[in-house]
């Protein structure tokens, strides 16, 4: 009985349902485009000339030019963006590597061969994430000043490592818990030591999860601005701090600001789109699969 009713629903309700589906599909498209609009407008404006960028009403079909990117990359005699970009790359990549180096063994000791109070330890890691960064800023500044580490990119590497370590431990713990225990036992019986087990057995199996963890740590380090602003000056300035020079508007600068914003966001956009499928699990600290 029930099979026939589901197999042959009445004609009118199918049409109604299809119509409703189309409307909801259109709504979804509208929402997606609306949220994407500011990003699209930023990219379009970055390819406009300065006078075309600052018109009201907006000039959608103005001719495209690469002028803003030329100015951004220092051809107009302004500050070169390369030192900040290289600093950001150094801080993000080095801190991500350091995070993995510390977090992988820790996650192993919290999932595969767990210590007794592994759950308490896991929550201790998370609790450090809830303490406001700004409350620790002054002592960090004073210590850095005393040991001569101000305006040094390696200070940011250490701070970004501590900032991302709790997230990475949580994520990796949930990814490593999915590695079948029998595989690890087999390696242990063969006499493999922990570094070998981690590198040869766990990394290949939990590879996608580890990659997602690295991408998220990279994104958070790349985006960070408060520490970078307070603790760096000229030599160790990072890309987001470089961007803050656009806070006050001086003359025609809109297209150049868009070019700089887009160029500096590009690594994160690329990393985020690449890790789309693992992004949810990562951002929810592994609680959402």
């Amino acid at each position, binding site marked *: 009985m029930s099979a026939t009713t589901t197999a042959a629903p009445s004609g009118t309700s199918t049409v109604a349902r299809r119509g409703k589906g189309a409307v*909801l*599909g259109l709504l*979804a*498209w509208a*929402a*997606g485009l609306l*949220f*994407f609009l*500011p*990003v699209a*407008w*930023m990219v379009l404006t970055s390819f406009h000339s300065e006078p075309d960028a600052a018109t*009201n*009403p*907006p000039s959608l079909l103005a001719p495209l030019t690469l002028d803003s990117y030329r100015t951004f990359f220092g051809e107009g005699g302004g500050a070169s963006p390369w030192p900040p970009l290289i600093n950001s790359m150094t801080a993000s990549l080095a801190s991500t590597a350091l995070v993995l180096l*510390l977090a992988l*063994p*820790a996650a*192993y*000791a*919290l999932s595969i*061969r767990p210590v007794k109070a592994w759950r308490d330890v896991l*929550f201790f890691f998370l*609790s450090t994430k*809830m*303490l*406001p960064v*700004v*409350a*620790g*800023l*002054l*002592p960090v500044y004073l*210590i850095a000043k005393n040991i001569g580490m101000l305006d040094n990119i390696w200070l940011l590497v*250490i701070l970004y490592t501590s900032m991302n370590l709790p997230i990475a431990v949580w994520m990796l713990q949930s990814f490593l818990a999915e590695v079948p225990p029998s595989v690890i036992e087999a390696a*242990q*019986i063969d*006499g493999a030591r922990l*570094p070998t087990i981690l590198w040869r057995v766990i990394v290949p199996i939990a590879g996608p999860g580890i990659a997602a963890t690295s991408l998220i740590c990279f994104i958070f380090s790349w*985006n960070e*601005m*408060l520490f970078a602003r307070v603790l760096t000056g000229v030599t160790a300035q990072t890309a*987001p701090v470089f*961007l803050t020079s656009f806070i006050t508007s001086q003359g025609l600068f*809109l297209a150049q*600001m868009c070019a*700089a*914003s*887009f160029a500096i*966001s590009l690594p994160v*956009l690329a990393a985020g*789109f690449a890790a789309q499928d693992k992004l*949810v*699990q990562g*951002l*929810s*600290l592994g*609680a*959402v*699969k």
Partner: protein
Amino acid sequence: MSTTPTAAPPPSATGTGRPTAARPPAGPRRASAWARRAPLMPALIFLIVCTQLPFAATLVISFFDWNSLYPDDRSFNAFGNFAQVLGDSDLRASLLTTIILTTVVVLCSLALGLAIALLLDRSFRGRGVVRTLMIAPFLVVPVAAALLWKHLLFNPEYGLFNGAINWLAGLVGINDPIQPDWISDMPLIAVQASLIWQWTPFMMLILLAGLQSRPGDVMEAAHLDGASDWQIFRYITLPHLRRYLELGGLLGSIYIVQNFDAVFIMTSGGLGTANLPYSIYQTFYQAHEYGLASAAGVLVVIGSIILATFALRVVSSLFSEEVSR
């Protein structure tokens, strides 16, 4: 049996290996416990040194009257700084701003995220593309996002919002449409709008994952029993999503309470938008009042600990459910 000690080799040769080799009665167990703990230690020690010690230092500094412009006048002040912070109307105002900012942004982005997640849960043409477009705001560097909203969208003369109003008005033949100065007229709403734009995708992703983990057979049974879409949403979807809503709200709050970039860039803390992170930054970085800034920091930490105990309970319940599944 004899393979167990070799099967669990200590990862580092820091003395833990010796009792295993000697094999006294209680030795192997203790050695094995240390072998379990050893991989954890580097991360744990690193984190304690980098996060707990600065807070201890903040606590000590908070008891001193210390302005770095007058380094010779540093003196013990007991609870004087705390009294001053609690009596400071600016700091109390920034506490209120922090609460309003966080609540509005978290609730609005949860509601919008839920609506969009429900739309994306159905199959339609180009669903993957729409999901990708939706994620983009979350992936723009926060400083760039704040600049984008300040200059490209909100600017009263050439911003996209006023430009669009002008263009639409021109279409229907109105010559002088309203051109509000968004950030001056509604500073807090302007900051909130840019943050909601950035955080809605985050909430959407978590809630979409929640929607897709709904038990399919229950949904189908409800459909067959003639339940309406609204009934299914109200009595099946929403209870199922509760934990995902809590998780999204919690994680969003952790980050938005600490927001600095948007306030710093869009208003520089002016026009009543200074939140606690911005006020503390200003007290320390511009006013050089080290003692006061530390006292404010300590109070923020105490507040965070109270919130965090509650928040950790939420995560804990979510987590144990995940394990029991």
